[in-house]
């Protein structure tokens, strides 16, 4: 008698649909529209058929005239296809920050600075009604699906003062920002009263591109035209190339994404379970393999590792703008009789978007253009033999391996202004906390506590991340990058307390606070529930002299540090 088999439902990618309400009738309708009707369903694998992608990875959204669909500078995880109606993209000049729900960057004047002398008398996070009044040019409304949409009140003025361009049925937008995890480059709003758009989350865009040649070619063409050319021009490696050579390079570049776009949620879960291991991270380049292309990190982060016993030891991490594999390829080009293989592995931490330039193109076009002095050093025999101490390895970080592991395991490399505390110097006096409270409505915007390793502590303060996952999904644009120095700030006026940023932040650096009126009473909404706002460190963007916490530390124990610059950290540790 054959044994009884136990079967369970296999976990699927689409366990959580983008729109649980998406109906088969709606999918049928989508399949009759361009570009889906031109797609060949046979080209899609059985596990991810076209129909299921549309059913699970898309949502139909309707916008009324003037409603903002995507905001310049926001981070988004999806692309949009116009199904009906028309939209407009704002070209030049950009819309004012206030119109987009943001605060115009402004330093406090003499009067406002001095007025902080009396702020200790005010209740924490208290506002006057007038302070919470929104900009007259922008409004906010909730649609029948309870989604908050921000709209432009004075459309004729927008048309008069800004150059805009129409986008109509069948046009795609937002897919490059979604796939490359870069900020949106323009603001797009609905022009007609019933604009219907299909929002496709990034997994859907990725799979559609993978299995439909036309869409892939279309998006790649847009990518090459809009984003790649300017990026390559700004990369030092290609500085010597002429226009024609640059075009040839651009045509040969391959795009790749590794890891999980929604890494922040996974990171929290894995960190809690203690199962974060480099061996589990997707491999981009494998140590010992033939170097078949130079990797340029466009967005996200990678971990540079080397074999150590049966595991992998982290040597360094690589962020956007870094080039890997160049030294090996340049060595092999100059010394073909003594070739070397890849000296390190590169693994995606979280999500990594990169460009790969094949070795052939490097050898034929790029390397001949680079002056001899600018080429990376040749490998010495002992370097490639693996006989060096770990700290002397080429590409090794300038800090000790255990510190590097600590920073990497906790994803702190993401921080451009991380609050690092030297516990050997910190007297736990909390002058930093008091300074923060004094400059921020009596509410300290950070906790002087956090993960520690030896004498290093990373406090629970906003790190102003290079990859700010908190900015994904803010419905009103309240959380945004300050336009000059890139600090991530929240506009309390347009924050609706939806908790999207609070839940997204992997570092628990955002706190929800119930706001008060001038008398200290909690402000209530019409439903008599307290009004909450998200609060976090703004790096004292409005104050003179830099972050108050750093300036308030009497012992030089606290520093706001860019953890992408490990040389600076090494210097700081040895100070």
């Amino acid at each position, binding site marked *: 008698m054959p044994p009884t088999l136990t079967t369970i439902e296999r976990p699927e990618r689409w366990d959580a649909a983008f729109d649980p309400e998406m109906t088969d009738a709606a999918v049928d309708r989508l399949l009759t529209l361009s570009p889906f009707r031109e797609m060949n369903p046979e080209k899609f694998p059985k596990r991810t058929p076209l129909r299921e992608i549309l059913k699970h990875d898309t949502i139909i959204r309707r916008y009324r005239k003037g409603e903002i669909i995507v905001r310049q500078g926001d981070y988004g995880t999806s692309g949009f296809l116009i199904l009906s109606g028309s939209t407009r993209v704002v070209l030049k000049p950009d819309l004012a920050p206030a119109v987009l729900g943001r605060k115009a960057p402004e330093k406090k004047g003499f009067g406002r600075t001095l007025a902080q002398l009396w702020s200790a008398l005010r209740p924490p996070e208290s506002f006057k009604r007038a302070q919470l009044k929104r900009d007259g040019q922008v409004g906010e409304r909730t649609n029948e699906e309870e989604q908050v949409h921000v709209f432009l009140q004075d459309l004729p003025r927008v048309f008069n003062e800004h150059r805009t361009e129409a986008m109509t049925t069948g046009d795609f937008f937002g897919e490059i920002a979604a796939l490359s995890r870069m900020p949106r480059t323009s603001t797009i709003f609905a022009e007609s009263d019933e604009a219907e758009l299909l929002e496709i989350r990034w997994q859907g865009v990725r799979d559609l591109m993978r299995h439909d040649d036309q869409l892939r070619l279309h998006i790649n063409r847009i990518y090459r035209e809009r984003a790649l050319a300017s990026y390559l021009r700004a990369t030092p490696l290609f500085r010597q190339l002429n226009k024609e050579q640059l075009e040839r390079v651009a045509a040969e570049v391959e795009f790749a994404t590794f890891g999980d776009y929604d890494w922040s949620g996974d990171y929290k879960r894995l960190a809690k379970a203690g199962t974060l291991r480099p061996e589990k991270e997707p491999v981009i380049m494998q140590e010992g393999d033939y170097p078949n292309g130079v990797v340029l990190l466009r967005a996200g982060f990678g971990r540079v590792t080397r074999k150590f016993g049966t595991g992998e030891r982290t040597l360094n991490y690589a962020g956007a703008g870094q080039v890997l594999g160049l030294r090996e390829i340049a060595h092999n080009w100059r010394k073909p009789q003594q070739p070397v293989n890849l000296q390190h592995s590169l693994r995606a931490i979280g999500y990594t978007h990169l460009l790969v330039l094949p070795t052939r193109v490097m050898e034929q076009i790029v390397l001949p253009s680079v002056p001899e002095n600018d080429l990376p050093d040749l490998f010495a025999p002992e370097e490639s033999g693996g006989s060096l101490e770990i700290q002397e390895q080429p590409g090794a970080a300038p800090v000790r391996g255990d510190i590097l592991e600590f920073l990497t395991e906790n994803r702190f490399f993401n921080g451009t202004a991380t609050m690092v505390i030297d516990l050997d110097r910190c007297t*736990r*006096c909390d002058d930093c906390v008091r*300074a923060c409270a004094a400059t921020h409505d009596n509410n300290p915007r950070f906790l002087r506590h956090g993960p520690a390793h030896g004498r290093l502590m990373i406090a629970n303060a906003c790190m102003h991340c290079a990859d700010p996952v908190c900015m994904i999904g803010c419905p009103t644009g309240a959380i945004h990058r300050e336009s000059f120095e890139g600090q991530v700030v929240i506009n309390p006026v347009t924050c609706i307390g939806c908790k999207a940023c609070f839940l997204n932040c992997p570092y628990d650096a955002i706190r929800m606070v119930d706001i008060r009126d001038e008398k200290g009473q909690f402000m209530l909404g019409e439903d008599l529930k307290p009004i909450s706002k998200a609060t976090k460190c703004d790096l004292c963007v409005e104050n*003179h*002299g830099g972050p108050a916490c750093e300036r*308030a*530390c*009497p*012992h*030089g124990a606290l520093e706001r540090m860019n953890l992408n610059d490990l040389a600076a950290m090494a210097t700081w540790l040895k100070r």
Partner: protein
Amino acid sequence: MSRFNRQLILGIAFLVLSCAVLLLVHRRYGALSPAYPYLTGWGLFIVILFLSAYNGRKKLPFLPLGSSETWLQVHVYLGLATAVIFLFHIRFRVPTGWFEGALAWLYGLVMLSGIFGLAVTRFLPRRLTARGGEVIYEKIPGLRHDLRQQAEAIALGGEQPSTTLAEFYARRLDAFFAEPRNFVHHLAESRRPLNALVAELEDLRRYQAEKERVEQLLTLVRQKDALDYHRALQSMLKLWLFVHLPLTWSLLIFSLVHIALVYGFAGGIK
């Protein structure tokens, strides 16, 4: 050269240089000019006022008044330099009147408490780091309460309550978990009380059938001791300021009275 070494060398250089300048001025004018005591007195008062302004800087973190670290460096080395001005001012004589005596004592205590504070802030943080288990001071009572509840549940609870363990808890552990203990021992880095308590608990294992519960209690005792250690050292890091600051205010008030008395009874500069 590292930043802290540079600060130290600059500070010492400033101190030596300022002492040398003060000594030169003292030799040149000290014995001759009748206005010299007024000069050193006013100089000392102004410097003390400036040193006191550091506390004001701390209250105004939103103003671009320079970093607190720089202020502290100036505070420390200028503060040490005042000792020389003070000695020149009193002409190396112990004040005889009760008021001047009190003023001199106040100055001395402010100076000593400052030096003590500097030493404390330089050495205690390293000990806290080396011990590990970083904890926010204000959270210590809550954590202690949690530990006490856990210890009580282990010692008194369970399906088969143990008389030995319950008796030991009532006799030795209840008071230990109820409040902070061994403040001085922790400051002196002595583990004698902890070792004694651990030895007594380990001794219980000979009579106690439930070794696992004793092990759990041992863990909690060590955690409580670590909390007490943090509390003791963090308290010291805060407490010295509660001496230094009131003494400074007293010194300022006494100095003002001293100035008034000098001008009231000496008839001004002759």
